[in-house]
């Protein structure tokens, strides 16, 4: 009956990011969401609890506005949540996020399994999971497609380039999961109502140990450019013929 901690990130929905004419990023109309890959992580944690018992705690480090994300996460099945929030936590680096999560887990919680998504939807640095394992001093398997629990150990099937490596790790252990682990459920009205009744522990900067300085400094950020012809064609036969003719002229037909 493992107690599981699942970590998630509240991120900008990249579909709403616009590019200004000068090539800068325009965030004025963005919305936020639980990072897609972390929804898989939450689903994996909840399925393991349903199969083996124990509990699931959802955890995030973010700005206070991410309280919406806590509610969203809880509507997807976890039993409770730990919300570590401060207005200065907007652009934390992976090493800082891992240090904060690690500090809180070590000092206040007991868990046998930590689950993270493969990477976040915004930075996609894929570092918080393995860094957190290192801080907690526990074994880790990344890019896991399948998890089973057998006594005191977790058996993880991790993806490598040409093979799948099946590893047995004594618990406590950490895994980061791929989407294959399980399609996230879509919360219903009842789930959303239940979510607001679940216990949430909120922690602030004052409850934490010293946060390390960031190592990486962003010196530039530009919208990526893709200059294409953007010519449109219709379905009528003449247009299709024109389309094929254009392909021919571009020399890509063989």
């Amino acid at each position, binding site marked *: 009956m493992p107690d599981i901690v699942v970590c998630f990130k509240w991120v900008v929905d*990249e*579909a709403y*990011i616009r590019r200004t004419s000068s090539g800068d*990023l325009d965030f004025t109309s963005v919305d936020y969401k639980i990072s897609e890959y972390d929804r898989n992580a939450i689903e994996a944690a909840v399925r393991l609890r349903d199969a083996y018992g124990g509990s699931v705690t959802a955890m995030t480090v973010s700005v206070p506005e991410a309280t919406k994300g806590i509610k969203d996460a809880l509507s997807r099945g976890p039993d409770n949540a730990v919300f570590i929030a401060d207005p200065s936590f907007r652009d934390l680096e*992976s*090493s800082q996020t*891992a240090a904060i999560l690690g500090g809180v887990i070590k000092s206040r919680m007991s868990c046998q399994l930590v689950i993270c998504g*493969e990477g976040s939807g*915004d930075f*996609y*640095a*894929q*570092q918080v*999971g*393995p*860094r957190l*394992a*290192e*801080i907690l001093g526990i*074994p*880790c*398997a*990344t890019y896991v497609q399948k998890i089973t629990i057998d006594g005191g150990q977790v058996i993880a099937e991790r993806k*490598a*380039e*040409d*093979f*799948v*490596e*099946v*590893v047995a*790790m*004594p618990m406590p*252990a950490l895994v980061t999961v*791929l*989407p*294959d682990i399980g399609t996230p459920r879509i919360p219903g009205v009842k789930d959303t109502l239940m979510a607001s009744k679940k216990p949430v522990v909120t922690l602030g900067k004052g409850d934490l140990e010293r946060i390390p300085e960031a*190592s*990486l*400094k962003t*010196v*530039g*950020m530009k*919208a*990526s450019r*893709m200059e294409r012809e*953007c*010519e*449109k*064609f219709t*379905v009528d*036969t003449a247009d*299709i013929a024109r389309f*094929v003719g*254009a*392909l021919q002229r*571009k020399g*890509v*037909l*063989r």
Partner: protein
Amino acid sequence: MPGVWVLAENRSQTLELLTIGRFMAGKIGTSLSVFLCQDRESAGDYMACGADEVLLLPEIAKDQSLDAYIPILSEEAGKADPDLFLIASTFRLKEIAARVATRLNTGLCSDCIKIYFNDRSGAVEMERLMYGGAAVQRVVCQSRPIMVTVPPRTFEPAGTESGRKGQIRSLKESPRSAGRVLERKRRERESKDIREAKVVVCVGRGVEKKEDIALARELAEVLRGEIAGTRPVTEELHWLPEELCIGLSGIQIKPELYVGIGVSGQIQHVTGFRDAKVICAVNKDANAPIFGVADMGIVGDLYDVVPKLINELKK
């Protein structure tokens, strides 16, 4: 001894990193070292390709994964204080890189696509994609060593130079890691490597059911190309094998021609083929983002368009 370090899982990845490693070592004014765990006879080749030093990692037991190297890599880096540590972005090495960086209290630039040496400031500047590929972030690292993971195929493999010499040093055994490998299952490739294909027809969620992929397959045949899919079609619905997943978290391709069939054009997917020579799309939604990144787009129902297209191409 400081220097530029290179770590990869195989020969081709190592040669690619030696290219950028050699360049950066020259700019920084330091030496180039490369780790070697398998095929030890490559040591001479790596020296001919620019390595000043080959560091032989001990062989690890069959039931150990690459994480067994974490203590030895961290310890060596602690002693030698390298300037720059270049690591191939493979599934397992990405984890090793993040854990070694944690032990060394340093930053790690993940999936770096460009590295520069800023001659004025003397800083190493690195570029990587953010927001699913919608943005390019440029970073510098303020701690040592500068650690970077680089996706395979980012750089050309290093060529040999005659008369180059170097040293070989064997590293000591590492302690065992806590995890135990029970089994390694080969992943049988169900398809060709689409990174080699000149033409790729990609199936998106606009295709209504698995059987309809036959239509896209027929188009691919007429175009003498291969078929691929978006993440929902491959990794979520499993209508196509996952090795055909095009995108930021899947495979990146640079074909002569990319044709998206019922592909909406989510940025994570587009990042997987942005360097294709010609990009085409078929989608019934005229406002689909794919049309903003395509050279030529046909606005229409794919079930109407694709058969007409096949017909016309056969002429």
